[in-house]
């Protein structure tokens, strides 16, 4: 019940409201179920005292019509009030972040200083307690953005921009996942949301918007050279280098993220190496070609270079 991706372990305003709604409905539903079971048992039992009352249309009218109408009216009203409470907050202080669904990863666009936005991928960092309005778009098919412990899901639909409001109540890591079937590797399209306190968030944002750390030793310098000469930059950006491709995820600070390949694997040099060489087995049909052209030394250099981009 207490997973990082559980509806029942809420860490956000919306998720908490919905969890309360759920537990109440569960209680009511259980009572109704018990009542039906008891009435059925009475009806089946040969000669119980209540059977006379059960056998007429009165039962149907009172228990089958009047009672449900009353209960449903109450439930409908509650649901509508909850719906109103969960609507997009037009908070002037809100942080606006854009998330674009791609097959099968998430492009995250933060506002930067001076109106210049910058990109990250597969991880969303947000400040605790502040409203975050997430603009949801898609680059290809329909996806759905869902972080169960923060809020319900909203779809990403071609030609539309949907907005949802997130408010995290506590710091910590939540896991999210694409909830609308988007073909191929739909099952392997997850991400993390990290809620930070306000100061940590600001310093992280400042670092994240800056260029990549330059390579420090000969091996990572080789790694950087390989990154450029073997064509990685055609699809990936590393700010501060010649690599400026926009097809795949921005890798400027890839080493600082919690996971690789849309939360499919852990993030360290060995995993990066496996991904480069063997990504089609790790995440079938993903759109990165497998790069089996490197020898072990080259692969280690390239992986260490990328892992070092904190």
């Amino acid at each position: 019940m207490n997973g990082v991706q559980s509806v029942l372990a809420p860490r956000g305003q919306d998720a908490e409201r919905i969890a309360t709604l759920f537990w109440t409905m569960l209680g009511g539903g259980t009572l109704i179920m018990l009542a039906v079971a008891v009435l059925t048992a009475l009806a089946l039992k040969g000669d119980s005292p209540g059977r006379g009352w059960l056998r007429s249309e009165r039962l149907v009218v009172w228990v089958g019509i009047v009672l449900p109408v009353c209960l449903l009216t109450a439930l409908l009203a509650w649901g509508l009030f909850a719906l109103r409470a969960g609507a997009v907050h037009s908070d002037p202080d809100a942080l606006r972040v854009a998330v674009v669904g791609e097959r099968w990863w998430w492009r995250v666009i933060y506002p930067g200083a001076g109106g210049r936005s910058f990109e990250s991928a597969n991880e969303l960092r947000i400040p605790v307690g502040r409203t975050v309005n997430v603009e949801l778009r898609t680059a290809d098919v329909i996806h759905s953005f869902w972080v169960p412990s923060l809020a319900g899901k909203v779809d990403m639909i071609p030609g539309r921009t949907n907005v949802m409001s997130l408010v995290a109540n506590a710091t910590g890591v939540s896991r999210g996942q694409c909830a609308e079937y988007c073909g191929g590797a739909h099952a392997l399209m997850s991400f993390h949301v990290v809620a930070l306190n306000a100061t940590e968030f600001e310093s992280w944002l400042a670092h994240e918007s800056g260029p990549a750390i330059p390579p420090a030793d000969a091996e990572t310098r080789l790694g950087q050279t390989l990154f450029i000469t073997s064509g990685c930059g055609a699809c990936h950006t590393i700010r501060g280098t010649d690599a400026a491709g926009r097809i795949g995820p921005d890798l400027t600070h890839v080493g600082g993220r919690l996971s690789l390949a849309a939360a499919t694997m852990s993030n360290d040099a060995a995993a990066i190496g496996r991904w480069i060489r063997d990504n089609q087995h790790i995440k079938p049909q993903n759109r990165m070609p497998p790069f089996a052209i490197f020898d072990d030394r080259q692969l280690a250099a390239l992986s260490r270079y990328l892992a070092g981009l904190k």
Partner: protein
Amino acid sequence: MPLLIRLVLGPIVWAAHFAVVYGAHTALCAIRPPGTAEASVAMAVGIATLAALLTLLLAGMTPGTAVRFRRDVTLLLTVLSAIAVAWLGITVLIVPVCTSP
């Protein structure tokens, strides 16, 4: 044939009300500039709901047949439709118009 239609007049009114209310909301929110559609949508929903309830009341008072089975069925369908129409109508009192969830 008309007899069968009279039998289900209640649900037909519900369906018409549903179509009008949903269509008006979608169309008005899509074409009116933001900020001006709210009042017209609320008014459209309110008028449609009152008109539907009135129609159902009239239909309920004149069942149109003396055959008991048909009269009972017509009446109860009218009552259920009226409840459904009312449920639809109260939404506009609670939920804001034209905004995303």
